[in-house]
């Protein structure tokens, strides 16, 4: 197994600032906007973005929810293991809101497809956008593209993109791992 660094802590920080600035450009004071972190891995990115908006750009109280898409996945009974769910935490309705889905890696697009169905359980959003830190180009199974992307990579299927967060894994970094 070999791995190479795609983004180190400094580069990741710069990328995050750019993504946050792009969000502000489109959503101004976030009054009509809700951020939805996709479980399990989008949670850390979503929380980081909310924190940066509040601390670095003086936009506090941005609404953040966490959405788990396990029960909406299209591979139920098609995998060896039972699909285990994570916590969904959305204590607001998204009716007429501008929703931004946040996930760390965009790969086949199937999770996003499931999330688009799942979010409808909480109302009819005015629009839905997608922010992802890493966009694995050429590996999409569905016509889904991000509105905000941190970095685009051409990783092949055998490779794995691993995003680490200081608060969870002890360091901020993005690796491409080859098995």
């Amino acid at each position: 197994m070999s791995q190479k660094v795609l983004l180190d802590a400094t580069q990741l920080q710069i990328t995050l600032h750019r993504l946050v600035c792009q969000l502000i450009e489109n959503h101004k004071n976030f009054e009509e906007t809700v951020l939805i972190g996709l479980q399990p891995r989008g949670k850390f990115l979503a929380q980081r973005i909310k924190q940066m908006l509040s601390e670095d750009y003086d936009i506090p109280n941005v609404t953040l929810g966490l959405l788990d898409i396990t029960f909406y996945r299209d591979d139920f009974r098609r995998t060896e293991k039972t699909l285990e769910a994570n916590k969904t935490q959305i204590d607001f309705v998204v009716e007429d809101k501008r929703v931004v889905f946040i996930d760390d890696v965009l790969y086949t697009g199937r999770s996003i497809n499931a999330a688009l169905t799942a979010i409808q359980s909480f109302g009819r959003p005015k629009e839905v956008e997608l922010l992802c830190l890493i966009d694995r180009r050429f590996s999409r199974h569905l016509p889904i593209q991000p509105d905000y992307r941190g970095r685009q990579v051409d990783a092949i299927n055998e490779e794995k993109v691993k995003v680490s967060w200081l608060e969870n894994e002890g360091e901020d970094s993005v690796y491409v791992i080859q098995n």
Partner: protein
Amino acid sequence: MSELSVNHLLGIKYIKKEDIDLIFKTADHFKEVINRPIKKVPSLRDITIANLFFENSTRTRLSFELAEKRLSADVINFSAASSSVKKGETLVDTVNNILSMKVDMVVMRHPNPGAGVFLSKHIGASIVNAGDGAHEHPTQALLDSFSIREKLGEVAGKNVVIVGDILHSRVALSNIYALKLQGANVKVCGPKTLLPKYIESLGVEVELDLRKALAWCDVANMLRVQNERMDICYFPSTREYAQQYGVTKELLNSLDNEIVIMHPGPINRGVEITSDVADSDQSVILNQVENGVAVRMAVIYLLASKIKNI
């Protein structure tokens, strides 16, 4: 563990502590789902479930049907009263006929103990026991423990007394298995005639005095006297039963401890509990009903995920 150790839920006796933990963890998520503005998920869109009720039921049948529909399964219902069972068809024949219509899972209530176990040896579909005679009612025991866990944080170490007609109760037996498996202390309380002989062999204590039992416990699970299963007289009169084994507000108020009151329903108000107890803040009876849907969704979801026929 992310998978159940069994392919059927025939009774608590056949599952492990880890299975219960997994069911509860999954039920937590489904409880959140059923409190959303839109309470439905598409997981089981390609699964068909047959609800076979060879015995009357309101709550359990509705709860199962709702759980199945919330998971987007296709549901067919069958009740023995209006079926060919009356014409002499055997259980295996009835079920096999239904299964030829490509049914993936069977939820069955049957008056004969062991009907689910018998069926599991003859058919390929996944089976959920929704009550078999006086044997087991596993989903009821699971939702009872889930409700205790929700109210008191955990089941392990808690003192639970099951009061009433233990002899005819499948809820009692499944609850004893489930509670012991999770490390709770269990006592049973009721007239001696309604306590099975050798009940202590299941690791429970017998307490004939209701007041002493209530003073000891954290949770009292009140059972209904099952008159329909009684072919002889087990106690002199309903009035005398209510006086000896009925829980009243006065009795609860006279205790030093505040206990949680549970009841699997249907309640005979004024017999095993009075209305003011059933409707009090100490009662979690309606929470049990809500949790029943979440727990049954979890059981069906986890069993369905083991059906690999794609």
